[in-house]
């Protein structure tokens, strides 16, 4: 029971990270119907930028609580801004000229962008893993029996709270603001939205910016949680986050979060009870199963084929 509870906590933490990345996939897919393959690598770049800012401002474990809090907000702001600019640039260079072209063209540029970003970071930052000493230590023992104690660490609390805050803010943007309305309009019918005065280009650009910024948050979380990053983390995380988006029903924002948590739980429980080596196999098999038996995903709307 205690072991189970511990894995549940770990799974939800990991799932929050996947969910934040998955939002970027699901939003882009919802609006322009393409798999943004470079999104996982934007997440990776976000993690690198967070690492640099943390080192640059000299944030260490002994920094006082208030200062750490303020410093992390600064790190978040910088990483989100730069990742947002990167997302905007990628859309502008590689996807916008091909919008309305045939379906596979933007997919190939997206794969090209992904290869480019990975190798660019490998080239500029080196291939070795980058460790970061733990900044936020401590935690609580919430249950203890026998020799096993269920730990809830501070970093896990921060990750989950931050995810909940971001999701709330994000849901507000989508449901209440003009930008969100424009996004939903573009998702339903891009041409019609354009005719009615929605600036489609701007809306799509902002979608990429928001998605990239959320991926950068996920990057910071990943860095703080695991304490080690390299140029290749984007691929595996990206594939799993896309799996999460599809699992939750592509185009659905709560679905992306739910899918992320389900994927995180599967991965953690599989590692805990079966084998660590096959955790990704379990996650991917789950994806295939869901698509076969529930093609619209957990929270997605069933797709209607139109002639």
């Amino acid at each position, binding site marked *: 029971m205690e072991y189970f509870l511990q894995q549940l906590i770990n799974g939800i933490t990991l799932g929050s990270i996947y969910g934040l990345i998955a939002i970027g996939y699901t939003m882009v897919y919802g609006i322009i119907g393409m798999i943004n393959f470079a999104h996982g690598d934007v997440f990776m770049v976000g993690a690198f930028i967070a*690492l640099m800012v943390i080192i640059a401002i000299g944030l260490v474990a002994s920094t006082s609580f208030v200062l750490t809090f303020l410093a992390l907000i600064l790190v978040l702001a910088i990483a989100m801004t*730069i990742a947002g600019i990167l997302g905007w*640039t990628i859309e502008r260079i590689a996807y916008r000229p*091909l919008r309305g072209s045939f379906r596979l*063209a933007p997919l190939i540029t997206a794969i090209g962008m992904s290869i*480019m970003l990975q190798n660019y970071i490998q080239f500029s930052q080196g291939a070795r893993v980058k460790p970061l000493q733990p900044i936020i230590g401590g935690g609580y023992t919430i249950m203890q029996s026998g020799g096993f104690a269920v730990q809830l660490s501070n970093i896990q609390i921060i990750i989950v709270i931050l995810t909940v805050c971001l999701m709330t803010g994000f849901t507000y943007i989508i449901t209440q603001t003009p930008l969100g309305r424009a996004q939903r309009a573009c998702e339903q019918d891009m041409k019609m939205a354009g005719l009615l005065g929605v600036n489609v280009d701007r809306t799509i650009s902002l979608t990429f910016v928001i998605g990239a910024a959320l991926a950068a948050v996920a990057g910071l979380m990943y860095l703080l949680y695991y304490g080690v990053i390299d140029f290749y983390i984007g691929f595996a995380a990206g594939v799993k986050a896309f799996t999460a988006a599809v699992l939750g029903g592509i185009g659905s924002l709560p679905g992306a979060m739910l899918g992320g948590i389900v994927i995180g739980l599967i991965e953690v429980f599989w590692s805990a009870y079966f084998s660590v080596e096959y955790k990704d196999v379990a996650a*991917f098999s789950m994806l295939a199963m869901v*698509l076969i038996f529930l093609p619209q995903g957990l929270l997605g709307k069933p797709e209607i084929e139109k002639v």
Partner: protein
Amino acid sequence: MAVAEAKAIAPSRGLDLPAIIKDCLLATLVAFAIFFPTLGVKTDSTGGLDIILRYRWTAVFIACAVVFAGRLLLQLLVWNRAAAATRPASPLAQRIGELELGKYLGPVVLAMAILMPFLPFTDRYVMDVAILIVTYIMLAWGLQVVVGLAGLLDLGYVAFYAVGAYSYALLAQHFGFSFWICLPLAGTLAAFWGIILGFPVLRLRGDYLAIVTLAFGEIIRLVLLNWHEFTGGPNGISNVPRPSFFGIPFTRGEEGFAATFGLPFSNLHRLMFLYYLAMALALVTFFVTNRLRRLPIGRAWEALREDEIACRSLGLNTTNTKLTAFAIGAMFGGFAGSFFATKQGFISPESFNFLESATILAIVVLGGMSSQIGVVLASIAMIGGLEVLRQLHFLKLFFGADFDPSQLRMLLFGMAMVLVMLWKPRGLVSSRVPSVFLKQKKIVSSDLVGQGHG
């Protein structure tokens, strides 16, 4: 003064110089925002857990300057002209497009390919690259059946390549089967896997299929990586039997190929044999897929690519049609895989990662989806280009003597993928005409039909 002059000239050319400069500066600003943190700051580990930052202002400055200059050139030379008048396509390109490109270019390329090993500049390295290119041509022709003809986006094609390679290696190692027995077995096994994997997922449409095939590709790689007892895990399988010339090995001794045919011994013989073997397999792929296109099944694939709902309405069994495309594509992947295994003599899961799938798919799409000669051109450009990128030793002048040019290789490869797609979104040789169609309309006389004439 200079500004006034520029303004005087600008209207005649239709240039708005201040706007252009402003645009270029903006682009540079964005470039600075991206390059400063990623290129200008380097995270260096000190050996322990600590990381220090080093700043590289020169690199950032150069990158920003390149962006500024590039943007300016694009503004002045490319976009300006395109805006001034819609440029007519160059007559040469038009004529190549009109001609049936394959009809003339195909035999020339084939003849060159056959003569290639006997040319004076051909050495070991050239042969290696040539074999690699031919392997990719074969893989791409196989994938073309799935992606180009049937319109199913497969991002995990490398799984079947892996199945073929491991089938050959394991069968040869455990049962001592020869290459020629293993080849059809490997193809059959790959096709079998294609059916197993394809059956549940082919109901899915478009991008869902893409992501599931990607997942399957990863699953197969992970299983190969972790199933130590069967596949050797990350160490792979070494000592895969090398090919022999119908039983005569390519060795130096009395029994060897050179001695048997009274030739002076040369390492090139084995490579030449491998090259022709690859050529033969690729040509088999070519002829089979080329014939299949004209058969009813091929026409069904092309119809399915254009409109799935229409196909279903006309009573086509879409699942079976997709499955055959998937299985046939997989079979050629399996052939290529077992050739790869015998060529390398060593296989490991690392050879079958997602990048391979992406490369093969990129070749098919760059080649123009359903053009067979396009695949050849794209494959030569991409794989040959990748090899050329290994040779960029002059870059040591910029980055110092310990710089390894192959580091930049994949970066430039990705960049080329993006640029070529932007330049020609429909591929190098784009054609969407069906492989089979009626050459002329049949006119039915009006007295044979009830109303009008058709």
